[in-house]
Each structure stands twice: as structure tokens, then as C-alpha cells.
């Protein structure tokens, strides 16, 4: 005799939902209660290091979206490139991180912050000094383990939910 049609399945299912009434909710209340993001978060902007950058445009070449625009001149005295303009259209950026990976001098990083929405399309295009790192524009540890080490540890849901099943 199979107990497939006697309402036992329904009763067992109801028990599961009833138990959840007394468990902690999984959610967190976002603006007040913030969880730490991953140390390798690819936030929605790029950070540029003007000291390390040599203007080799490897990042612009590797960008699949063509969002990075660099203009350089050659300085004949030192035989080096001089970056006149670096312009990133973060509206085109898909946060794939290939530019960071491609850069041979570690001069470009992904941003760590994610709340960078703008009201106008034009403000998404960032250039030169706007791209530099600053306290409110921290760099993320994506592809850069030495930065990752200093960032806060990621909050994990696996560790947050500890109730026994």
C-alpha cells in the first residue's frame, strides 16, 4: 500500500513551512545593514594609477566593448609615452575585468564600490583625474592579491545561517 494519495505529502510539506516561521530570515535590510562584498568585487568603475601607467594601451586593446580611450604622445627626452587623456565610458563597461588582467604594469584596477549610479548618461564617461584612486573610490582586489589582503573579509551566507535542519 503506497501512501501517495492520503494527504501525507501535503502534511509533511506544511510542516516544513511551519518550521520556517520560527527560523531567522535569510534576508538583510540593505541600506542599513550592509554585508561585506567579495574582496575581488568588480565594481562599476575603473581605477587608474597614473604613476604606473606607461600608456601602452594594452587595456584598451583587450577591452571587448571598446570602452577605454587613450591618447598618448611620445616624450623624446625619456623615450616614454605620455598619457594625454584616458577616458573610460563606464556606460559601455560590462565589468569583465579583462583590462585589469591584461595590464602588464598593474596600473588599472576595478573599483570596489558598487553604488555609482548617475543621473545623466554623460556623467558615466570618466576621464583622467576622475579615474584616480581616492578614499571614496577604493580599488578592488581583482587580479591584485596584495590589495585584496587589505580589504574586509567577505560575509558568507553559509556562515550566517547556522540553524540545524
Amino acid at each position, binding site marked *: 500500500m503506497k501512501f501517495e494519495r492520503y494527504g501525507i505529502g501535503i502534511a509533511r510539506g506544511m510542516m516544513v513551512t511551519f518550521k520556517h516561521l520560527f527560523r531567522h530570515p535569510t534576508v538583510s535590510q540593505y541600506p542599513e545593514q550592509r554585508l561585506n562584498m567579495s574582496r575581488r568585487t568588480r565594481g562599476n568603475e575603473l581605477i587608474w594609477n597614473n604613476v604606473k601607467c606607461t600608456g601602452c594601451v594594452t587595456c584598451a586593446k583587450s577591452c571587448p566593448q571598446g570602452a577605454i580611450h587613450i591618447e598618448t604622445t611620445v616624450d623624446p627626452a625619456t623615450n616614454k609615452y605620455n598619457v594625454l587623456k584616458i577616458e573610460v565610458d563606464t556606460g559601455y563597461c560590462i565589468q569583465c575585468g579583462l583590462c585589469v588582467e591584461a595590464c602588464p604594469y598593474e596600473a588599472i584596477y576595478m573599483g570596489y564600490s558598487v553604488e555609482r549610479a548617475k543621473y545623466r548618461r554623460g556623467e558615466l564617461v570618466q576621464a583622467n583625474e576622475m579615474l584616480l584612486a581616492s578614499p571614496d573610490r577604493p580599488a578592488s582586489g581583482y587580479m591584485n592579491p596584495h590589495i585584496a589582503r587589505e580589504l574586509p573579509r567577505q560575509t558568507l551566507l*553559509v556562515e550566517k545561517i547556522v540553524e540545524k*535542519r
Partner: protein
Amino acid sequence: MTIKTEPFVINFGPAHPSTHGVFRMRVVLDGEVVLDLEPVYGYLHRGIEKLAEQRTYTGIIPLTDRLDYLAAMSNNLAHCIAVEKLAGIKVPERAEYLRVILAELQRLCSHLIAVGAFLNDSGAFMTPILYMLREREKILDLFEMLSGQRLTYNDMRPGGVSQDAPEEFLPALHKFVDQMPRYLDEYDQLLAKNEILLARSKGVGILSKELAINSSASGPVLRASGVKWDIRKAEPYSIYDRFEFEIPTGTAGDCYDRYLVRMLEMRQSVRIIEQAMKQFPSGEYRSRVPKLIRPPVGEVYSRIEAPKGELAFYIVSDSSIAPYRYHIRGTSLINLTALRDMIVGWKVADLIVIFGSIDICMGEVDR
């Protein structure tokens, strides 16, 4: 007295709550019974195959993320394996294990969404999908820790993975794998034997074994019809030949079997991850590969078992930095071949359940 009745045409989608995106079906209804059905595709066509012809082999990886966006890791893996086969790139051990772990986590992730959405379509108001999203969230945490993104990971590269796993990855994975079987038990308890679900899905939308094979169905849809075919076993790619696992198969090929096969596959995935964790080696995570890969002239058809079925890439190379022809075997699209045969004759409510049980992702259908 006779009452004149006539069937009426109704549009399901492209903006319908349970068409999983922008799928559209023109359905001819007689009262509640579906008389005819014509799927309309193409609302999410982005021309990925054409775009890929102008990108480097590394630059394509973000595109593959956007194919089946619920299983981006698997797509990355399929692409990377295809490119490695084409260019003859070796992959270090650690990367292989990491890839298998990620691919299996991704399978869990995708199946959780599939089962949850199926149960949601069958009317269990949001509860199962929210429970399953909770588990998916834990997996996404792990992915985020590894790659920095939660949906479009862009994590694997030809010749390995982009970054090594951080030291806190394995303990977290351990915790997750410990918890997961208990949660799966809970899901089984929640709805697997529910009488209403049985009544709704047993015997509904039967896809016979012959039709399943003939219409090139793959993945859980094929296995639910009773075909023991899994590329991980049949043609072990990566290092799948080192793990012990079973291929769960259904018997009837109805919606309930498809649901059950997914639930059982999740347990097998957990099993694979456990084994991979035990054998996890140290060492290189990425072999040295030039930035611009120029594979020799040739073609390759390489397939993997993605969560939704056989995902394959057919790449023709002309030894330049971009592929000459880049074809994607969209699993979801091909699984929809037999959609009409499965649905016609059932009611509107069954249409939704059958459609939900196939588990498609519109990004992969229209590409």
C-alpha cells in the same frame, strides 16, 4: 439547441509572468484545452555568433557569460575547453579541479532555479523558489569570492582559471557541501510527495524516449525520458573520469520525472564536489598562454554537459586571433523542438507546467 463555439488564439508572452523571459507562444485554445501552439523566438537575439567573429578568444568569454546566464560558469568552461582543444593548450591539475567544482556548483545553481521556477509555475506561491534562491545565494557567494561577480563571472580562461581560489574558499565550500544534502532533504519533504504536485505533474507532458532522442533533446529532459546519456560519463571531458557518480534517469518522461531527475542530479553534484575537494591539489592554477591566442587552422566541435543539457561550441579557426566561425549549440533552443508535441492536448495550466519543466533560458534560446 446547439451552441456555436470556436477556438480562440491567445498570446503567451513575450511579457508573461511564467515564460522565463521573453518567450512567446501563440496558443489556440478551445476553452481551456490547447489545440495548437506555435513558439515565436527571437526577442532576445543579440547576434552573439556574429559578435564572436570579431573578438579575441579571451574576449569571447564575457559573451558566453550572457548565453545561459543562469549557468555562466558552464558556458565559460565549454568555451575554454573548445579553445584548448583547438589550440592544444594544457591545463594544470589544480585548475581542472577548480573547474569541476565550479561547474558542479553551477549545475546546482541552475537546477535550483529550474526546480524552483517549475514549482512556482505550478502554483506553490513563491515559497519553494525562495528557499532555493537561498541555497543559490550561498553558491553565488562562493562564486563572488572567486571571481568578483555574481552572475556573469568571466572566470575561466583557456589554460586554467583567471585567479586562484583564496584561502577562505575551501572552508566555505566545505561548510556548504555539509549543509546542502540536508537542505535537499528539506526540499523533498516540502513538495516531492505532495499530492497536488503529483496530480499536476505525473503523466503530464510526456516526452517519449524515441521522440526525445529523435528531437535531439539533451540534459535532464533526455534523461527523464529514460535515456542514460550524460556526456560526463559518455565522453568525460576535463577530469570527470576520476569521480564516481551516477546518472539519474526517469522512466515516464513526464514533468514529475524531469523534476525528480534534477533533484537527484543535485545530490550527485554534491557528491562530485565532495570527491573533488578531497583530491584538491596545490600548484599552478593557470598555464602560460599568450594573451592573443592564435590556434592553428582547423575546426573543433567540443561538447560538455551543461546544466540544461549538451552545450557545444563549433569553432573554425583560420589561425587569426578571432574565430572564423563560432557556432553555439544552444541547449535550450534545441530542447524546445518537441514543445508542441508535449503540450498539445493539455490545458492552459499544464502548458505552463510543461514549459517550466523543460527549463530554458532565453539568453541561450535566442542568442
